[in-house]
């Protein structure tokens, strides 16, 4: 038996809501992204071949088809926002799945008084293979040290909370043992013409904009489609 007219109108309205909602969701799932423009952008972007060797702190598989190098400053707000909001997704969905290799390069900007101490602290944590955890703390709790007269104290608290060997950490900070790591990254940035943070270099080409997760995903999808051959454009020789 057919439903009475008011009920038919009601069910039709429900159907319309369902179709519109499903359409909006599907449209977002199938959003073309920026794959088309990625290749174009990279082809016209200036070359920025990062030196081979042990510069920076790397995360991800060496065989990943795409490498992004990030030059960042720990006092920079945009760097913190990227690290807190976007990077966890990049790490979980692209780096952990072997599609992307990430390299962080120290680039403490002039005028950021506490930044050098934070970069040294992170490099010292890196000596104990805990760079990424220290970086997370430094950026998520930027306000705890960036405006302090003595940033070394909160930075040391971060090292303690990570369970680092504090004697080793202290001697690293006091002697500046890890400083050459920071300086080498900075010099590399200067050589490549980095003048702001965060700056991203995609497969050896300077990306002209700040990236978010969608942007990084579009780059990876474009250069190394899932199930397809990697098509990295015009990448200069790199390790």
């Amino acid at each position, binding site marked *: 038996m057919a439903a009475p007219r008011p*009920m038919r109108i*009601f069910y039709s309205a429900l159907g319309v*809501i*369902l179709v519109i*909602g499903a359409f909006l969701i599907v449209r977002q799932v199938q*959003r073309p992204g920026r794959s088309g423009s990625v290749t174009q952008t990279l082809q016209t972007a200036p070359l920025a071949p990062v030196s081979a060797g042990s510069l920076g702190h790397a995360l991800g598989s060496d065989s990943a088809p795409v490498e992004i190098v990030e030059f960042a400053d720990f006092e920079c707000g945009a760097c913190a926002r990227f690290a*807190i*909001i976007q990077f966890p*997704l990049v790490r979980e969905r692209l780096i952990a799945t072997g599609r992307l290799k990430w390299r962080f390069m120290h680039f403490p900007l002039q005028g950021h008084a506490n930044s050098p101490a934070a970069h040294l602290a992170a490099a010292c944590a890196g000596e104990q293979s805990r760079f990424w955890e220290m970086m997370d703390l430094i950026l998520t709790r930027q306000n705890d040290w960036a405006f302090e007269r003595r940033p070394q104290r909160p930075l040391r608290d971060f090292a303690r909370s990570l369970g680092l060997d504090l004697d080793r950490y202290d001697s690293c900070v006091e002697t500046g043992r890890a400083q050459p790591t920071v300086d080498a990254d900075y010099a590399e940035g200067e050589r490549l013409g980095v003048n702001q943070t965060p700056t991203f270099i995609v497969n050896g080409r300077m990306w002209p904009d700040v990236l978010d997760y969608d942007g990084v995903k579009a780059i990876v999808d474009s250069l190394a489609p899932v199930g397809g051959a990697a098509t990295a454009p015009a990448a200069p020789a790199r390790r």
Partner: protein
Amino acid sequence: MAVAVLALLGLLVSTYLLLFKLGVLGSIACGGSGSCERVANSSWAVFLGIPVAAYGVAGYLVLLVVALAGLGERLLARPEPTRLLAVLSGLGVAFAVYLTYLELAVIHAVCRWCVVSAVLITAICAASLAGLRAFRTDRAR
């Protein structure tokens, strides 16, 4: 009828959040604040090993089915479906209160889609309670 419409909207919102959590959606429309990502990527976005959004999808689906069943000819005059809706949506409101507390006091970020869902489940609960009251008034006459 109102409960069915609200439950359908809730189902769409929680499906959207679940698809983001599962990585099907690259990003979430959140006004560029990053609050939704922060909430969805926090450790509290998973409850007993299952994404919180999945509870939302399941909950709203059940509410929608019960609401539609209650509109059928056989059950239209009976209070049981409305009672069930009131109990289920009451549990949903309690869960929404807990999640909102986490957002405000622990994560320190408010996801606007979670707010929409909290408003929807509260409205469903209010509509169900109003329906129950209407049943009692009818019976009293």
